[in-house]
């Protein structure tokens, strides 16, 4: 098959990065923006074409028909390696390839990434200017970084092997660093970018060691060798196979010299370590601290990277290795527990934040945790692995409505020049488009029928219910909190009290079309995406399956959401003292939520006091005073010794002669005595 399109999908963003990065300063900002947006539009079209081809063309490389359990014919989506050249070869069979794998989840991710990326590119044309239309300084650089990010993220999702994933994983981390720190003159942005990079780097350490363990035992990096089996008769086509994963476990791990390590199997260790990488990128507790700070970056960047695409990389990673995770349910249980705790924690914190972007950031953490839980509770025997499908479905819908919410927040911030809702209040009349689209986003995330979030969240709750009633109740509570804090945010921004207009000529107003079009588009998607029968596209084993809505679960979650919204409306629709009373009634809880349970302070303590104060500084002192001191001591001793015997050399020639003469006479005498 011709790989030109797929090569272009990766090459165009890379080329744009180099072009705008190297020659950006010679281009006017306008041209740079148009170039970047157009290029991304082309990539989007190519990605849509690829995904459409993959799902609907019926090409034997992409899908096949197999006989299902009950004798019916089932369509199975396959994994097709478009290209896979060797990038780096080691000894033995170990080699790193940089390739392009097309399968159901990567095709889905291609659509998500390019859509959001295109929207953000378009949106930024207007966002990165002030009200007089003057472009921000570094506009070209901004587009270059966006292109770099798109390239890295696309490379990540189409990875054919775990090492390629790691490579692009690092690259998205770096582009995230560059974009968070876009306003590099602001110290807050600089420290936020640094924090994001270092925290995720720490998580990547786990990922790296996990890869090393996995590759040592199996001798390969390729996903195909872990999770898939070749399709007969086709060279580059594979199908997802749980048998391969269990064979890997049985032959490589269970058969090795040390199958267990500290009470857990080595495979579990490897998978948990790899999951640690995912925890870092996807901001799971306790590695979540970077994401709220990452909101220092420009808002469209938050929408693209820190809401829709990069932060779900962790979910994608677990999904990609899912057949392996299924072999070790301990690892999946860890995923579930981490996800569940994070979801609840983030939802709690989101209820008490003032900065609207922080609310959205914690909401993102909570929603990603939903996806993680959904993967963690997925078992093939539970309703045809509904959790996997639900997770990917939620990833898809969440990307759309969360990007919508962030872009809406961007429009608000652009209008009032503040991140805090205290500066907003009652904006619904001034910014109708933003208002309505934001409302749709809130309804979608709260899980109100017929918006997309309802369907995906419902599937997740169904999966949780199948797994354990406790997880179900827990996650339902989180869903209730989600509806509450989102509508708290909504009412505080658009209602509460009348907006105080300081200057009638500069009243807040809707933004120009490049900013409203993405809002409307994403709002439309959020309205209709829920009706997609996602099981036709993505399932844990690639076989199409129709998942029916469980109306009991749906009814309960809908009721819960409506009640939460009602509570939020009661508390925040009109200005009233109820919220303050609530906060006063539970001061401790409010305080902890407001301060995000003091995680940042804890990390500050660990990094500054312990790592800097107790490790780095003593080591530096030790080096200067002990090691170097010893070296200097050698020199000093030699020096001192020389000084002390230096008096012998008086410079008086006749003294030397005396000494010489006496010495010679003595020697002569001794010789004489000895000879006699």
């Amino acid at each position, binding site marked *: 098959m011709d790989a030109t399109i797929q090569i272009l999908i990766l090459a165009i963003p890379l080329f744009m990065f180099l072009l705008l990065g190297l020659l950006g300063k010679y281009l006017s900002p306008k041209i740079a923006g148009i170039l970047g947006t157009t290029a991304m539009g082309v990539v989007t079209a190519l990605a849509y074409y690829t995904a459409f081809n993959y799902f609907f063309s019926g090409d034997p490389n992409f899908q096949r028909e197999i006989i299902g359990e009950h004798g019916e014919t089932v369509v199975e989506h396959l994994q097709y390696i478009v290209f896979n050249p060797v990038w780096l070869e080691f000894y033995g069979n170990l080699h790193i390839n940089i390739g392009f794998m097309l399968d159901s989840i990567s095709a889905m991710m291609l659509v998500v990434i390019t859509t959001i990326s295109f929207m953000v590119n378009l949106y930024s044309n207007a966002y990165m200017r002030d009200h007089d239309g003057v472009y921000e300084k570094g506009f070209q650089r901004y587009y270059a970084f966006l292109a770099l990010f798109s390239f890295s993220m696309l490379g990540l999702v189409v990875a054919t092997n775990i090492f390629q994933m790691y490579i692009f994983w690092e690259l998205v981390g*770096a582009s995230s660093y560059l974009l968070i720190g876009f306003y590099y003159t602001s110290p807050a942005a600089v420290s936020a970018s640094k924090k994001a*990079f270092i925290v995720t780097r720490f998580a990547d*350490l786990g990922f790296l060691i996990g890869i090393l363990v996995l590759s040592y035992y199996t001798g390969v990096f390729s996903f195909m060798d872990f999770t898939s089996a070749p399709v007969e008769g086709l060279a580059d086509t594979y199908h997802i196979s749980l048998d391969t994963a269990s064979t890997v476990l049985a032959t490589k791990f269970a058969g090795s010299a040390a199958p267990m390590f500290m009470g857990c199997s080595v495979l579990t260790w490897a998978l948990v370590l790899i999951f640690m990488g995912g925890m870092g990128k996807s901001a799971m507790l306790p590695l979540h601290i970077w994401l709220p700070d990452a909101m220092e970056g420009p808002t469209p960047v938050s929408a693209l990277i820190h809401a829709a695409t990069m932060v779900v990389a962790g979910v994608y990673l677990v999904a990609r290795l899912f057949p392996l995770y299924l072999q070790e349910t301990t690892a999946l249980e860890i995923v579930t527990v981490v996800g569940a705790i994070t979801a609840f924690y983030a939802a709690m914190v989101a209820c008490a934040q003032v900065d609207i972007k922080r609310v959205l950031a914690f909401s993102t953490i909570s929603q990603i945790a939903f996806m993680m839980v959904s993967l963690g509770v997925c078992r093939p025997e539970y309703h045809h692995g509904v959790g996997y499908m639900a997770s990917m479905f939620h990833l898809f819908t969440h990307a759309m409505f969360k990007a919508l919410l962030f872009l809406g927040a961007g429009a608000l911030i652009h209008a009032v020049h503040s991140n805090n809702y205290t500066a907003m209040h009652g904006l619904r009349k001034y910014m109708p488009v933003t208002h309505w689209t934001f409302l749709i986003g809130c309804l979608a995330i709260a899980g109100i029928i017929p918006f997309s979030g309802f369907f995906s969240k419902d599937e997740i709750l169904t999966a949780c219910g199948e797994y354990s009633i406790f997880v179900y109740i827990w996650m339902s509570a989180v869903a209730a909190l989600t509806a509450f804090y989102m509508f708290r945010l909504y009412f505080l921004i658009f209602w509460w009290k009348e907006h105080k207009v300081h200057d009638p000529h500069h009243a807040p107003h809707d933004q120009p079309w490049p900013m409203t079009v993405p809002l409307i588009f994403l709002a439309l998607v959020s309205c209709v995406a829920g009706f997609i029968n996602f099981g036709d596209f993505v399932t844990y084993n690639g076989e199409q399956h129709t998942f029916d809505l469980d109306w009991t679960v749906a009814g309960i979650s809908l009721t819960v959401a409506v009640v939460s919204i009602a509570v939020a409306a009661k508390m925040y629709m009109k200005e009233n003292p109820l919220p303050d009373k609530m906060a006063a009634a539970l001061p401790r809880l409010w305080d902890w939520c407001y301060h995000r349970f003091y995680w940042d302070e804890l990390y500050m303590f660990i990094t500054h006091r312990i790592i800097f104060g107790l490790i780095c500084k003593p080591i530096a002192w030790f080096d200067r005073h002990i*090691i170097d001191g010893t070296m200097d001591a050698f020199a000093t001793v030699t020096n001192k010794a020389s000084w002390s015997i230096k008096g012998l050399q008086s410079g008086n020639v006749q003294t030397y002669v005396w000494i010489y003469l006496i010495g010679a006479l003595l020697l002569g005498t001794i010789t004489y005595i000895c000879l006699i």
Partner: protein
Amino acid sequence: MFDNILIYFVLIPLIMLAGVALSQNIKQIRAVAVTGSLALTALSVYLLVDYLALRAAGETAPMLYTGSWQWFAPLNINLAVGVDGISIAMLILSSIILLTGSFASWTIAQPKAFFLWLILLSTGVFGFFITIDLFAMFMFYEVALIPMYLLIGVWGSGKKNYSAMKLTLMLMGGSAFLMLSLIGIYYNSGLFSWNIVEIAQDGNISHSWQMFLFPMAFVGFGVLGAMFPFHTWSPDGHASAPTAVSMLHAGVLMKLGGYGCFRVAIYLMPQAANELAWIFLILTGISVVYGAFSACVQTDLKYINAYSSVSHCGLVLFAILMLNTTAMTGAIMQMLSHGLMTALFFALIGMIYGRTHTRDVREMGGLMKIMPYLAVCYVIAGMASLGLPGLSGFVAEMTIFIGSFEQGMIDFLHGHGSLRLVFTIIACCSIVITAVYILRVVGKLLLGPVQDDHHRQLTDATWWERTATATLIICVAAIGCFPNFFESLIKFTFSPDIFKVLGMIQ
């Protein structure tokens, strides 16, 4: 003699020396330095291409382009030359750094004397890499060492006399050990030969002698490779040295250490290397994290980079001691990568220092706004240092980690202890610490608000500075993007056959 291509690596610098000596003004000196180093670069690239063609044609000798000319018959000292992939990689590295170093010292004071010593130093470096005769190797090593004293002592900054003396004395101390070890090898291999290839193939150094000579050779070269606890010359020396000397020293001379450790200590005494590796594994493993932690709290840019070099060069020696093909390939990649990267760092630090007249990160800030070109280059160098994919550091580190982990697991699963495994994991941690100190510097130095208003008038890079940094960045990116080409260059040397010949335990 002149039909051997390798001899030109020594002849060209000698001609350059004459050229500089005869030059009338700074323009001529620059012309001589740039032309000469360009010629050396071209020669080494030609050598690379030719070498790969020869290997592709099935040449299997361990060293190619060999030649030997008698020097002092009673002691069987010859000027024997020959190269393999590793030496070629080092020759390319040296010539590129000499080239960029010449650009970086475009406006140095007393250019004639400076370039004379600089070129004399590189004569030693090139001679070291082409020769396969232990005695000649030692001699070239000394030739490379001595000019350093004058270069730092005369053109340096800060506590230059102290640093120059310290650096020279410590390295001389190392070379005393080395001399002892080389003479030991000469007398105990049973051949009375200085030729490395002969000793490796036919020599027979008894086990007890190996156990005595290996540590001395390893420490001797290890001092140059900044192995803990013999690394303290590096921060002071690098901090005081002028730009081009820092570049050449950290970029090339420290590689002499790693190269020598492999070529002499391990290549000739594999048994002892296998048995005594644990001592040096601990020392080099400590170097890796120790250097990184120390770098976290330094405030002088050059000290930060010097400690970072301790960490990265520690990784080179660490990987060599794994005695594992993948890890050793990674070690050579790391030498190449670190050489280019650290030269870039020192060049940039020199350029920034030349403008702001301070190297204290606390006194600078927001340079991105003032000198964007240099700042972007610094960020790229930093990214290479912390191992961003697409730049050279990543490839080298990953190769090392994969190889070391493999060897660590083999040791562990076969009951040879978990030392290698534990230290590999500790070494892996350095990627996080590296990120910490690199981003700390980038954040303080380049980003944030402008710290000192006097800095606002400063200018960005001149064309020669751009040439120097761009060349290095292109090399760093080339290795990072197309690693397979460079690894294939190194691979043949480490092919399992060679290890079998050497009787190395695989």
